[in-house]
């Protein structure tokens, strides 16, 4: 029927084997890696290994790690549809880990970089790239708060799903934040943004099933 299904069939044996392997990996690994991604650059900053401007470097390292985790999270669904390998089990942990790293990223900015309440508000309002980053962060909060099974029951699956579509807004915003942080149109953040756009585009087939099936005859 679709490209996804065809490739799944071809790679079936391999995907099944990888799937079984992934199935044995405990979810807590994601949190452990997340903590490492915070602790490692922080330790390096303390020992001078992050160079002469450790505050800015730490801030940027944490921001990039958070974005990378968000990209991995966004890749879960396309990966499952294209290869049959399901990392669905890890998705909640990936989202919460991204938030954890974002909080570390924000803390460095708040406490080690700006460290002045008046200026923090000023920065949020007056600097577009901080406004964008802050918006992405705020959108993560309701998603984290409703990340439990009981929250899904309380909200109902449909409402929960609609709320969590915020992901498709906040991850691109995080990517835009990265582009804006850099002076000029730099390649690295643009590549991340392109990757995010691609991962979102791969979902369009599912979001627009009717138009698809109408325009393309089923075999």
């Amino acid at each position, binding site marked *: 029927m679709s490209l996804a299904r065809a490739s799944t069939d071809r790679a079936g044996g391999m995907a099944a084997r990888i799937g079984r392997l992934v199935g044995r990996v405990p979810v807590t690994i994601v949190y452990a890696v997340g903590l490492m991604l915070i602790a490692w650059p922080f*330790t390096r*900053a*303390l*020992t*001078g290994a992050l*160079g*002469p*401007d*450790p*505050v*800015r*470097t*730490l801030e940027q390292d944490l921001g990039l790690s958070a974005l990378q985790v968000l990209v991995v999270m966004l890749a879960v669904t396309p990966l499952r549809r294209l290869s049959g390998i399901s990392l669905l089990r890890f998705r909640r942990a990936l989202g919460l880990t991204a938030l954890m790293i974002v909080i570390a990223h924000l803390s460095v900015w708040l406490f*080690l*970089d*700006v*460290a*002045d309440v008046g*200026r923090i508000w*000023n*920065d949020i309002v*007056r*600097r*577009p*790239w901080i406004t964008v980053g802050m918006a992405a962060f705020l959108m993560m909060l309701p998603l984290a708060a409703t990340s439990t099974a009981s929250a899904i029951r309380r909200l109902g699956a449909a409402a929960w799903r609609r709320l969590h579509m915020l992901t498709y807004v906040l991850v691109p915003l995080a990517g835009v934040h990265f582009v804006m942080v*850099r*002076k*000029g*149109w*730099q*390649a690295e953040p643009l590549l991340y943004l392109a990757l995010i756009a691609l991962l979102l585009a791969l979902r369009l087939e599912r979001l627009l099933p009717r138009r698809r099936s109408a325009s393309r005859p089923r075999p």
Partner: protein
Amino acid sequence: MRWRFRTELTESDVTPEEVFRARRKFMAAAAGAAITGALPGGAVAASRSDPVLRDEPTRYEDATSYNNFYEFGTGKGDPARLAGRLTISPWQVRVDGLVERPLDLSLDDLLKEMRIEERIYRFRCVEGWAMVVPWNGFMLRDLLERAGVRKEARYVAFETLLRPSEMPGQKRRLLEWPYREGLRLDEAMHPLTLMATGMYGKPLPKQNGAPLRLVVPWKYGFKSIKSVVRITLTESQPPTTWNMMAPDEYGFYANVNPNVDHPRWSQATERLLGSGLFAGSRPTRMFNGYEEEVAELYRGMDLRKYF
């Protein structure tokens, strides 16, 4: 007699190398101890407060490993990593435009003929970090006077070397190459304005703009153009690279000014390179602390408009 710049920073402010190293070891040990909780926090606090409040020259390793020189890449470490392949000998500099005698000088000519002196200057990047660098160089005004400034000249334009084969960043059109900068003639003739040929008593490292760069200590760092090959006297304000790229962010004047925000960075404070993770930032000074020397250049100008 011509007025000459006198800095409040003197040779005695330069921390001897062995003291740097001893201090660095202590800082590392203190940081290590702080992690394991073996030292009271106060000891760490005392060791880190001093370099922030005092204008101690930045460690040589820091000043030469954390650079913005987009000709070699946009990462702070790219210039130190990639500038090694740049050929700086032979090096010719042209002084032309509205001058009596256009000059074509090699670096050796300059080193032989110009009066090289040491100047310890604060250096402030528009991104909010700062350092203190002991430069070696000569006053730009001495060079311009050798060429003879014609009376129609009102600005000075500078150009960096264009050589994509050795400057990989120039292969991408992130900025319009070659890098260009400019000063008003009175700024260029100011005794603080230096053409640096060295730093810390050594020849200028390539990542810092070898073999010849401009240093204008009261302006944001991007004005202090590196690896200069051409200096042209002009009648009208020359186009400058960052200004062409984002005119609302990077003004032609780019004077350090805590009261005029950059759209990206509040300029109220600055982080001193090498001061550590918990040092915090210090207030930015008007004209980077050179207000007494240069404020008269801008008397009557709206510095919000001419940022």
